[in-house]
C-alpha cells in the first residue's frame, strides 16, 4: 500500500486551482507532484511521493544518523565475526547501542 519514492523538488508553483505543485526529480525523470500537504517545502528538499502527492519530507539528518549507525554496525559485525578456532566472543552487550536505527521523538 505504499509505493512511496523519494524525489528532489526542483521548482514550486501554484496551479490554476491555487494548489501548490512541485516539479520533482526521480533519478533524472520529472513528475508534477502536489505539495499541498507539505507547505514548508523548498526547492532542493527531498520528499516521499505517493500517487502524485508528497506525503513526507525526507530528513537528511536522520538519514545521515541512520547511516552512521549502519556503518558502525557493519564494522562491529566485521570485528565480531566468529573465529575459526573457537566460539564467538562477546555476543551481547555491544557498545554504542547500534540497535537504535532511528529513535522515538519526544
Amino acid at each position, binding site marked *: 500500500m505504499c509505493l*512511496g519514492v523519494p524525489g528532489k523538488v526542483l521548482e514550486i508553483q501554484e496551479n490554476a486551482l491555487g494548489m501548490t505543485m512541485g516539479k520533482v526529480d526521480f533519478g533524472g525523470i520529472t513528475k508534477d507532484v502536489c505539495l499541498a500537504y507539505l507547505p514548508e517545502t523548498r526547492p532542493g528538499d527531498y520528499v516521499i511521493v505517493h500517487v502524485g502527492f508528497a506525503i513526507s519530507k525526507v530528513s537528511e539528518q536522520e*538519514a545521515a544518523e541512520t547511516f552512521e549507525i549502519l556503518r558502525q554496525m557493519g564494522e562491529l559485525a566485521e570485528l565480531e565475526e566468529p573465529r575459526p578456532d573457537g566460539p564467538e566472543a562477546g555476543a551481547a552487550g555491544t557498545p554504542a547501542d547500534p540497535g537504535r536505527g532511528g529513535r522515538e521523538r519526544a
Partner: protein
Amino acid sequence: MRFVDEYRGEADAQAYVRLIRRAVTRPWILMEICGGQTHTFIRSGVDRMLPEAITLVHGPGCPVCVTPLELIDRAIAIAGRPGTILTSFGDMLRVPGSATDLLGVKARGGDVRMVYSPLDAVKLAQKHPEREVVFFAVGFETTAPANAMAVWQAAKLGLPNFSILCSHVLVPPAMEAILGSPANRVQGFLAAGHVCAVMGWMEYEPIAERYRVPIVVTGFEPVDLLQGVYLAVRALEEGRVGVENQYARAVTREGNVAAQRLMREVFEPCDRAWRGIGVIPRSGFRLRPAYAAFDAEKRFDVGAITAQESPLCIAGQVLQGLKKPHECAAFGVQCKPEHPLGAPMVSSEGACAAYYHYARSA
C-alpha cells in the same frame, strides 16, 4: 537514486543478517503489514537470508487484496455503463470479480483507464463534462490524503460528473483483529512505513501496550527491512514492548498533520468488510455527508450485486498470516496469476503473487 540506493547495499544487508543471526536465541514469528514490504522481501531475496528461527508471515497490507468482492463487482458494473469512464490504479485492473475483471470489461468495450494519481481522474472529469468519471479509490491511510484532495478539488470546482467508489481501509483495526484472534501466532510487527508517514505512530502505542508486542515502523528497501527485523528481534529477545521507528528519515510520531486534517474533513471512519476476513468494525473510511454527492455507490444504481467467491480460495487465512500461500491446495494449480481465484494472486502486492513470481521453486 538518492535515499534509495543507499538502502540496497550488499555489505550493509549482510552486516544486518549477521547481527540478526547473532541476536536470535529462539524462534520468533514476525508479520510485515504492508504488501510493498512483502514485495521487497521476496523480490530481493531478503526473506531467505534470515535465519530459520525467524518466520515471516505476510499481513493484509494489500488494499487491493482486501477490497470486498461486492465492490469490485460494483466497479465492474459501473465501468460497463455507457457514458462512464472508470479510472483506477493499475493494481486493481486484474483483480477478479465474481465473473470477470476490469480489464475484461475494457475488452468488451467499457471505458476503463489507468491513472497514476487521483488528480488525473479529476482532470479527466474536467476534460469530459459530458461523461461520468468515477475513480476507484482504493488504499490504506497512505492513499487517503490523495483521494481526499481529489474529492475536495472536485467540490471546489463544482464538478457534477466526478465521483469516487470508496474502498479505504485502516491498519490499526486490522492489527487489532489479528492480535485479538485466538489463532494468532504473530509476536512482533513491522508497521507500514508510509502509512505512518501520514498518520504518525501514536495509534500503535496503545496496541503495543495492550497486546504486549514490539512494533517497529519500517521502510521498504532491503536494508530498511533488515534493520526493522533486527530491531524487532532485539526487542523480543530483551522482552521489550512498544513502538520503535526504523524509518526515521520519513516518519515522525505525529505524522503529516495537514494530510490528516483534510482526511478528517472528507472522510469518516466506518465498518468495512475485508475480503476473505469479514467485517472489522471502524476499519474503513467513507465520505462524510457533506461530500455524499461524490459517492459513486449512491450515484449509480447498478442493481443487486451477489458476489461469489471461489470455495477453493483461502485468501482470508493468507491475509491474516495464518497460512502461507504455498500451503494452499490450489496454489500454482487451479490458482495462478493467469487464472487467479482470489486477489492475493493477482495484485502485485498480494502475498500469493509474490510467492508465485519470486519464491516458487521448480
